[in-house]
């Protein structure tokens, strides 16, 4: 006869109470898991969008360009991209390199004019390391000078379709306004709001001409073979190309976004905490009842010579078992919800339709399961149950045996 055995049976002394308590715990924990899955999913989608469309893994800029990237300073660009490409192409671990030219522009359909982000890409190279080429949902990818790709959302906003003509207008390096007429070659649906709403993608040569920057590019995008170890690769690239250039990883360039996501995690944790407190109140109540109704029993055990620590342990097992049931149930429900989220996802698009959000993804969020987190949540549930049990039990065991025995 072990204490654990007695505790186990006491758990089933009030089966319904145990089930209700475990259910309360499981609701709390499954919500925590749900939120974690969503947050992970959102972060993963954001990361994918950044890597697959925006920056790839590493970007090289001319020194001081990145500091002022927001204003697209054309006086600090990479004047000789060949030099960089040749310099680093033999570094092992690089999958591909492509130049890009980013600039501020506006496009007009003859009636409306909208500010956009213009982007000149190397037609052939770009599709080796970015997914842009694979996201053309209507029309075709860039082929000739005069082609432009725009996002489906932008097309809707400006009532454009494949074959429509637009004018792109920008200021060149010398401050002179330049304009080109372009034909919409294809529509992009990337899932990245920046690309789908605000981007005009044109052949790089045309961008260079438009900006009067000759062979210059604003950045060189590098895709690594191994996504996890970008640090050493960054160092090597940096060493190779010298001090007049700067190299950043995609994470460094998007620190702000993942800081926001740190905020989200804090929020998620707070909400989780509230839910867990609710669950904890449930189990406090149950364990309080379990202890109170068994005070004479505690007295009997004490009369037999049971020490307080043994009695406390017995109740801790009891609370722990209920906690384990609740946690297991919570993790199971959380897992099922998470699996649904991974495969189907949640559609927030209605909610954010008219809001401009910097977070680089669309609002159908698919989940991403974090099993380690789930394990922590499981242990957390048990821990909370045990801690919460301690309080009433410690109080009850402080009673003298006579008082405990007399208690009704």
């Amino acid at each position, binding site marked *: *006869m072990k*204490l654990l055995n*007695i505790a186990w*049976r*006491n758990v*089933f*002394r009030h089966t319904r109470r145990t089930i209700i308590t475990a259910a309360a715990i499981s609701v709390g924990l499954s919500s925590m898991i749900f939120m974690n899955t969503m947050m992970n999913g959102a972060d993963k989608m954001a990361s994918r969008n950044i890597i697959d469309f925006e920056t790839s893994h590493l970007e090289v800029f001319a020194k001081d360009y990145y500091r002022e990237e927001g204003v697209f300073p054309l006086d600090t660009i990479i004047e000789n991209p060949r030099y960089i490409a040749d310099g680093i192409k033999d570094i092992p671990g690089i999958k591909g390199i492509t130049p890009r030219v980013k600039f501020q522009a506006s496009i007009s359909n003859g009636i409306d004019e909208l500010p956009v982000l213009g982007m000149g890409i190397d037609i052939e190279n770009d599709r080796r390391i970015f997914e842009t080429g694979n996201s053309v949902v209507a029309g075709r990818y860039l082929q000739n000078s005069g082609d432009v790709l725009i996002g489906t959302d932008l097309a809707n906003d400006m009532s454009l379709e494949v074959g429509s003509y637009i004018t792109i207008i920008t200021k060149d390096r010398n401050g002179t306004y330049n304009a080109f007429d372009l034909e919409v070659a294809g529509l992009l649906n990337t899932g990245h709001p920046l690309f789908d709403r605000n981007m005009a993608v044109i052949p790089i040569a045309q961008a260079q001409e438009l900006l009067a920057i000759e062979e210059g590019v604003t950045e060189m995008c590098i895709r690594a073979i191994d996504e996890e170890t970008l640090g050493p690769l960054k160092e090597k690239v940096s060493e190779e190309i010298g001090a007049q250039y700067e190299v950043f990883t995609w994470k460094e360039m998007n620190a702000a976004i993942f800081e926001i996501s740190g905020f989200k995690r804090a929020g998620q944790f707070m909400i989780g905490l509230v839910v867990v407190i609710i669950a904890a109140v449930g189990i406090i109540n149950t364990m309080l009842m379990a202890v109170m109704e068994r005070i*004479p*029993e505690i*007295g*009997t*055990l*004490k*009369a*037999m*010579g*049971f*020490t307080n620590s043994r009695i406390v342990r017995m109740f801790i097992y009891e609370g722990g078992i209920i906690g384990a049931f609740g946690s297991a149930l919570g993790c199971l429900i959380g897992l099922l919800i998470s699996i649904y989220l991974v495969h189907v996802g949640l559609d927030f698009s209605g909610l954010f339709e008219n809001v401009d959000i910097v977070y680089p993804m669309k609002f159908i969020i698919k989940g991403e399961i974090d099993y380690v987190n789930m394990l922590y949540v499981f242990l957390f549930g048990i821990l909370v149950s045990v801690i919460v049990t301690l309080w009433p039990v410690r109080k009850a065991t402080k009673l*003298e*045996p*006579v008082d405990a*025995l007399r208690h009704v």
Partner: protein
Amino acid sequence: MIETIDLHKDYRIGKVLFPALRGIDMKIEDGEFTAIAGPSGSGKTTLLNIIGCLDVPTRGKILIDGTNINELSSRRKAELRKTQIGFVFQTFNLIPVLTAYENVELPLVLLNLEPDKKKERIVAILEEVGLGEFIGRRPNEMSGGQQQRVAIARALVKEPTMVLADEPTANLDSTTAKEILALMQELNEKHGTTFIFSTHDQLVMDYSRRTINLRDGRIVEDKRKPKGPR
């Protein structure tokens, strides 16, 4: 041997001290079968609790085999209860989730016995109290008399030097009460265990060799007789 010297117990009720025991002097030899009798409120339970190390006297001494148990730490008292003292309660106080066998096993959890020996002892004592067939029953599947038998087996299984029973028959009908008393007497003779029980039931006093009568916290009579009826 149990000896009390000028034992006093005051209960504090608000600001007033209520004297429940007012100078108890007595000696109980090993192996005695003693009833503590007296009307309700006379201090029987209080006295038994003090002898059983569940409570402490306000004044006076209580010696068990010469040791003043007042001076023991609560840990040592628990130790004493674990090995030397068995309790039987008016309300049986069995653990409802445990079977008869497991209830009797409970005190042995605290002692280091070999599993085989443990089992042997439990089965033997349950046979002795006449519950050989009820080993697997839970308390709520047994009559009051049967539950009290389990409680007696539980008190005796660790082979204590004394069993303290506070009104062990008060919740039983008279036939069952007689059976329980006869059983305790039999066990007392067989094992030589000291039995001290409280009662205000004449029937119970008829069974005892010695009856200590309490009134208002004092001993008013201490009478012995050669042998109780069987």
